């Protein structure tokens, strides 16, 4: 099976740092279902650029602090 994505993310840590924000709350704020947020967190789905920016905006950090791509 081809690995879905090489993109990694720090969403779990960022949620923890943001007062243990729930997956449901973050999903609602960025406009996706909780299942999709879980898939993003686990690296099974690369979100669209718009959704990626919305996630970064929720945590008030630059995109690079949320998503990383190995060089």
């Amino acid at each position, binding site marked *: 099976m081809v690995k*879905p994505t090489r993109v990694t993310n720090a969403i779990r840590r960022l949620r923890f740092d943001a007062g243990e924000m729930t997956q449901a709350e973050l999903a609602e704020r960025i406009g996706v279902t909780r299942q999709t947020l879980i898939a993003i967190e686990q690296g099974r789905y690369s979100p669209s650029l718009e959704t990626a920016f919305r996630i970064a905006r929720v945590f008030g950090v630059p995109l690079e602090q949320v998503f990383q791509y190995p060089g």
Partner: protein
Amino acid sequence: MSSPPEERSAWIMLVLAIVGYPVYLILLLTGATGAALPEADFAWPMIWTVAGSVAASVVLHALFRVYTDRDGNTRDERDRLIGRWADRAAYAFVVAGALAGLVLAMLRAEPFWIANAIFLGFFLSAALGSVAKIVAYRRGLPSRW
């Protein structure tokens, strides 16, 4: 973790495709007792199978919505992307069925074989599309497709 409504829908469609085609064959063969297959009445077994599948699909979706669906009918970007991926996988079998029908027509085959080639293509397309969707939900989409 609950599965997305679209994944549950894919499971329903897969089960209906797996059950539906044997049901069609049973209806066809029980109606064709004694007659050669190309002379068998295939139209009504096809119509009953399709109508039964549609009715079963409506009932099963409604039951799932009532008893398990906490997310309503919300579809997001991932659902749409996986839907397109599955449609693309399923499309291959629709084309294969149509091509088989076309070749059989060129060879002046009986309408029975032409109709059945196309019908089988539809069922394989439904089954493969559902499998592609379930795999994409469970394991993720390949990064390039």
